[in-house]
C-alpha cells in the first residue's frame, strides 16, 4: 500500500533507473579531476574579475569623475548594471520558490543552479549602489545605525534606502534557502568521499552538511521549512524588483514618473532571469552531460516562460507609450518620442528587437528544441534587457524639463571595464560552483524516480544468518 504517484513525473527523468545512478551522475564532476577546459575558463573569468576590481580601485582613488557621467545624467552604467543584475537574480528565486509553491516537479532539476545564479547575480548587483558613490567607506551610512552625530538617521522616504533593505533581505534569504537545499546533498557527498577514503573532502563536506543523516523526523521538518521559505521568498522576489522600480517610479523625471513600473520591472526581471537560466543551463548540461536531468522538456518550458514574459514586457512598452500620449503631458510625450527618435534611438531599438521580437521565435517547436538557436536568442534577451535599463535611465535623464541642461552621456572605458568585470565575477563564481557543489538537487530529483530497479550492490549483499 503505497501513495499514488502520477506517471507524468516520469518524463522529467530519462534513462535513469536507480537512485545510485543519480548520485553518480551528479557527483561525477565533484569527484573527478578538474578538466583543462574548466581550469582555463576559470582562470580567464578570474582575470576579467580582477581587472574589474582594479578599475574599481582606480575609481575609488580618483573619483567618480573617471566615469562618463555629468550633472544632467547622474546615473549611467552603474545603476543600469545594478538593475540588470538584480533582474537576472530573480529567475532563480522564482524557479526555486514560486514553481515549488505551484508544485512544478520539473523545477527540481534546475533550481539548484538557478539559485546559485541568483546569489552570484545579486552579489554583482549589490556592488553598484555602493560603488556609484565613489567613496566606499561611506557605505555604512546607508544603515540606520545609532550614532554620535546628533542622532543622525537615514531617510525612510528614499527608495534608495528601501533598496538597501530589499536587496540585503533578498540576498540573505536566498543564500539561506540555497544552502538549506544543499545540506542533504552535502551529506551524500560526505559519505561518498568517506567511502572513497578521501578524508579531507569528507571532513569539509562533513562540516558543511551539519551532520545530516536523513532521519524522517528531520525530513518532515525540512520539507515544511523549505515550503515556508518559498512562501516567503515569493512575495520577496516580487517586492524587491518593485522597490527597485520605485527608484524611478517615485521620482518626478518624465519617463521615470510612471505607475506601471513595478509590474513592468518584475516581468522584465523574470524575463531576463530566464534568459540567463537558458544561457547557463545549455552550457552546463552540455559540459557535464546532464541531458538526462535537464531534459529538452525543461528547456522547452523555460522557452515558453520566456515567450510569455517577453510578450508581457512588450505590452508594458506599448502601454507606456499610450499613457504618455493619453496623459497629455508635454514632458511625457516628448520623452517617449525622444526615446524612439532622439539621440539614443539605437539603444531603444536594440532593446525592442531583442526583448519583444526575437523571443517570439520560440513559438516554433523547431527553434525551441534547437539548443544553438535557443542559446543565441537567450544572449539576445540578456543584451536587450540590459538596454532596457540603459534606455530607461539615460534617455529619460539626458533630456528632462529644461532644455538648457540637456546633455549627452558617453561611458568611459573605466565604467565599461567595471561592467565587464562583474561578468568575470559572475562566471568565476559559477565555475567554482559547478565544480565543487552539486549543480543538481539530488534528493529532489530522487523523489522524481518512480519504480527504481534494484541496485547491484544490494543483490550481492549477504542475508543475515538464520
Amino acid at each position: 500500500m503505497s501513495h499514488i504517484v502520477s506517471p507524468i513525473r516520469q518524463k522529467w527523468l530519462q534513462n535513469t533507473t536507480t537512485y545510485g545512478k543519480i548520485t553518480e551522475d551528479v557527483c561525477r564532476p565533484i569527484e573527478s579531476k578538474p578538466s583543462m577546459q574548466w581550469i582555463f575558463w576559470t582562470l580567464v573569468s578570474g582575470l576579467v574579475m580582477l581587472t574589474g576590481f582594479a578599475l574599481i580601485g582606480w575609481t575609488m582613488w580618483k573619483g567618480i569623475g573617471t566615469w562618463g557621467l555629468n550633472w544632467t545624467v547622474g546615473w549611467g552604467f552603474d545603476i543600469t548594471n545594478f538593475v540588470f543584475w538584480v533582474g537576472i537574480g530573480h529567475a532563480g528565486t522564482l524557479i526555486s520558490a514560486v514553481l515549488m509553491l505551484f508544485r512544478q516537479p520539473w523545477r527540481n532539476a534546475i533550481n539548484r543552479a538557478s539559485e546559485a545564479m541568483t546569489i552570484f547575480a545579486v552579489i554583482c548587483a549589490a556592488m553598484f549602489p555602493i560603488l556609484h558613490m565613489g567613496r566606499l567607506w561611506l557605505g555604512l551610512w546607508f544603515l540606520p545605525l545609532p550614532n554620535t552625530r546628533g542622532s543622525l538617521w537615514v531617510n525612510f522616504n528614499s527608495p534608495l534606502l528601501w533598496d538597501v533593505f530589499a536587496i540585503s533581505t533578498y540576498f540573505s534569504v536566498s543564500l539561506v534557502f540555497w544552502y538549506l537545499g544543499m545540506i542533504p546533498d552535502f551529506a551524500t557527498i560526505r559519505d561518498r568521499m568517506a567511502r572513497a577514503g578521501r578524508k579531507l573532502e569528507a571532513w569539509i563536506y562533513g562540516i558543511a552538511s551539519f551532520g545530516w543523516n536523513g532521519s524522517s523526523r528531520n525530513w518532515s521538518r525540512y520539507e515544511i521549512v523549505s515550503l515556508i521559505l518559498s512562501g516567503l521568498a515569493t512575495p520577496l522576489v516580487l517586492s524587491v524588483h518593485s522597490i527597485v522600480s520605485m527608484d524611478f517610479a517615485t521620482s518626478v523625471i518624465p519617463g521615470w514618473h510612471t505607475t506601471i513600473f513595478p509590474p513592468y520591472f518584475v516581468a522584465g526581471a523574470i524575463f531576463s532571469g530566464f534568459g540567463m537560466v537558458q544561457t547557463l543551463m545549455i552550457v552546463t548540461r552540455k559540459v557535464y552531460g546532464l541531458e538526462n536531468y535537464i531534459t529538452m522538456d525543461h528547456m522547452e518550458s523555460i522557452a515558453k516562460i520566456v515567450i510569455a514574459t517577453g510578450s508581457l514586457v512588450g505590452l508594458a512598452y506599448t502601454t507606456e507609450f499610450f499613457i504618455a500620449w493619453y496623459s497629455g503631458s508635454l514632458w511625457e510625450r516628448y520623452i517617449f518620442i525622444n526615446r524612439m527618435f532622439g539621440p539614443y534611438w539605437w539603444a531603444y531599438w536594440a532593446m525592442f528587437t531583442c526583448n519583444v521580437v526575437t523571443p517570439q521565435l520560440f513559438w516554433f517547436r523547431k527553434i525551441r528544441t534547437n539548443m544553438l538557436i535557443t542559446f543565441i536568442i537567450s544572449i539576445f534577451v540578456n543584451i536587450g534587457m540590459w538596454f532596457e535599463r540603459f534606455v530607461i535611465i539615460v534617455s529619460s535623464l539626458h533630456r528632462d524639463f529644461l532644455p538648457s541642461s540637456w546633455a549627452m552621456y558617453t561611458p568611459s572605458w573605466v565604467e565599461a571595464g567595471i561592467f565587464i568585470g562583474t561578468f568575470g565575477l559572475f562566471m568565476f563564481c559559477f565555475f567554482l560552483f559547478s565544480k565543487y557543489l552539486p549543480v543538481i538537487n539530488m534528493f529532489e530529483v530522487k523523489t522524481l524516480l518512480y519504480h527504481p530497479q534494484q541496485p547491484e550492490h544490494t543483490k550481492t549483499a549477504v542475508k543475515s544468518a538464520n
Partner: protein
Amino acid sequence: MKARNFVVGKFWNPDHVLEALDKLQHDRVLVYDVFSPFPIHGIEPYLNIKRTRLTVASFIYGCIGVTLAVTMMSLIYGVVWPVNIGGKPYVPWVDFTPVAFETTVLFAAHGMVITFFIVGNFWPGKKARLFDDRQTDDVIVVAIDRQKIENMDAVRKTLTDAGAFEVTEQISEGR
C-alpha cells in the same frame, strides 16, 4: 543518549519500506526511525511524527520584525528627530511600508531557519550518526529498538518479506 542495540533493515525501494512499516505498525512494533536519502512522503503516520510548529514560530518572528521596524521608524521621525523632508509629514506612514515589509520577511525567514537548526540539533561539523554509509545515497534504513521487540523472528521476517535486502543488528546511539 547511551548506545543501544538496534535491529536495522536496509531497503532500496521506498515503497517496500512503506509496506514494511505498515506491517510493523499492524504488529504493534514501534519503529525507532527511518533514514532515507530523500523524503518519503506519507511516512509520518507510521513513525507518529507530529506536524512541526515551525510555521507558527515563523509567523511570530515576522510579527516581531514588523513591530520593530515600524516602532523604530515612527520613534525616529516622530520623537527623536522630526525633520521636514520634501514637505512630507513628519511621520509618513505610507513610506514606511517597504522597509516594514522587508524587515518582516527578514525576521520570519532567518528566525525560522535558525529555530529549525536548533530543534533538529544541526550545527556545522556535527558528526553524523549513520546505520549505513549509503543511507544518504541509495539505501533506506529502518531502525527498530531491540529492547522494544518481543518477537525478533517475526520482525526480521516482516522486513525481509517487505523487500529488505539486509537485516542486521547494530550498536548505535541512534540519531
